[in-house]
């Protein structure tokens, strides 16, 4: 018992320190991220980093809906998949560049997000979860059976790699920087959204939607908006995935992938941007580290999840608000001066 309290005191002390030196931490992480591909040349590690960052992007998007707005969506693998198929078809058949492919994927997925969100977001809790699960399955079946477009179970191969304004990129280092830029843009977007009246409205919906509506928040509109933005982010991540891996088939975009994303968001911390980074990167790297243990891998993973849910159900950085910690410290300082 004593040990855990010491541990939590240690953690909260560290969090306070991080809150007071946010800029330092962000700068440090950014420098590390930029230097990383120059320090590491191992292709396996680089591949892991690229995939890890792609999951960071997916988690950040999903966190908007699940963490900040408090709605479970199991449909994000479908959005990811639709984005991937859109980009694959457009770059392969029409020879579109990467940027237009990203844009097209965002728009197409945004439309799907809107169409799904319109009827579904009037539901909440379990009902929303089940409907989004169903959506995921439907999309998978369409991908599997719509032969003329998706090539069914054989998938689409030979997707062109990234090309910007006619210049194509083939090295792992360039893939890494493309996803890094996408992650930075996504982080900025989410950060700005949640620090505005939009973010406050989402949090109020999470906390008590009846009161939120009574206080003047048009909740259905906000839910749909958040869902569309979140799905668009997943769509762009899908477009990245297609051009990075150059071969996609329906098995990547199943309900299992949705579940993985959700676990990352919850493990890292609901309603926390650093939490999404932590969750996505840790849960990409962890299974790889455990690879030597073969059949025990999933067992350890499972035990870890159970322990996690018992000890800290909000996730490691769940609802840790760094701005709040900082203001609190500042207020205390002011009082001490007085």
């Amino acid at each position: 018992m004593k040990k855990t309290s010491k541990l939590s005191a240690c953690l909260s002390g560290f969090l306070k320190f991080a809150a007071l030196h946010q800029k330092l931490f962000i700068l440090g992480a950014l420098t590390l991220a930029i230097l990383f591909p120059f320090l590491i040349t191992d292709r396996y590690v680089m591949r892991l980093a690229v995939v890890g960052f792609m999951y960071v992007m997916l988690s950040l998007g999903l966190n908007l809906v699940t963490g900040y707005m408090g709605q479970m969506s199991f449909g994000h693998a479908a959005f990811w998949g639709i984005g991937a198929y859109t980009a694959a078809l457009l770059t392969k058949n029409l020879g579109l560049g990467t940027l237009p492919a990203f844009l097209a994927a965002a728009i197409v997925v945004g439309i799907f997000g809107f169409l799904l969100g319109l009827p579904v977001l009037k539901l909440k809790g379990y009902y929303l979860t089940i409907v989004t699960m169903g959506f995921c399955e439907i999309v998978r079946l369409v991908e599997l059976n719509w032969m003329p477009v998706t090539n069914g179970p054989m998938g689409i191969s030979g997707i062109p790699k990234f090309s910007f304004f006619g210049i194509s990129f083939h090295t792992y280092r360039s893939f890494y920087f493309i996803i890094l830029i996408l992650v930075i843009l996504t982080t900025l977007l989410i950060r700005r959204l949640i620090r505005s009246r939009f973010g406050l409205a989402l949090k109020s919906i999470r906390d008590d939607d009846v009161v939120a509506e009574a206080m003047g928040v048009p909740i259905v509109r906000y839910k749909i908006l958040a869902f569309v933005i979140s799905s668009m982010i997943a769509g762009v991540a899908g477009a990245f995935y297609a051009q990075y891996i150059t071969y996609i088939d329906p098995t990547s975009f199943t309900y299992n992938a949705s579940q993985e994303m959700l676990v990352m968001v919850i493990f890292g911390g609901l309603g926390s941007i650093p939490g999404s980074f932590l969750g996505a990167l840790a849960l990409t790297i962890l299974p790889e580290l455990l690879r030597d243990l073969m059949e025990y891998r999933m067992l350890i993973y499972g035990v870890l999840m159970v322990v996690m849910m018992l000890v800290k159900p909000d996730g490691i950085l769940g609802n840790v608000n760094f701005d709040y910690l900082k203001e609190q410290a500042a207020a205390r300082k002011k009082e001490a001066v007085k």
Partner: protein
Amino acid sequence: MKVLTVNHVTQRFGGLTALSDINLEIREHEIVGVIGPNGAGKSTLFNVITGMYAPTEGDVYLGETCISGWKPYEITAAGLGRTFQNIRLFPRMTALENVILGMHCRRQTTLPQIIFSTRRKKEEEERCRKEALRLLSIVGLEGKELAMPSSLPYGEQRRLEIARALATQPRLLLLDEPAAGMNENETAQLLEIVKSLKSIGCAIVLIEHDMKFVMNVCERLYVLNHGEQIADGTPEEIRNNPLVIEAYLGSEE
């Protein structure tokens, strides 16, 4: 000038008539109480006015606008603020955030402005923060802006809810049992606050069981019993009304 008119409102749930033929008129700057025994339909009336239910019959007017059938958020934007009987603050938002959220319908920044973090957005953010701090000090919560609602004592939670309702810039404020569960000190404090709200310029309707509080603060009262309006008038008139006495204490036979 009338702020609120409730015109022949009847509310039925299946076979149950929760309200029948209720008429209210609230003028500007007035403090009016709605009283009645448990189950009289007071909270139902509030829920009809705030748009939680659409009235089965009759209409509700806010100023000159008919608001029956409107969504709660539209009614709030039209100028009606409320608190809840069982305190319902947003538990995972700070006191300040709770109040700032109340300003939602008065804020104008659009999504593109938010995404590109324009100057207008930052200015609005700053303005709201200042305004929220001002409202917190009105209800006597200065210095508590970073507190989580659950860490505040009961009386302060109630006052925080009033600040959040004021943040919507209401022309009419509905307080649902504001003094419920308060000790005498807290009730006295609340009394001062409610009286001071008059100078802000919004009318107030409150449901309350604490008769001393009601008689002290309200200028007029409406009395409900079994979903029917049995009396209205000044506190003095109500106190001596035989129908009201019967409703509360039972008849003599």
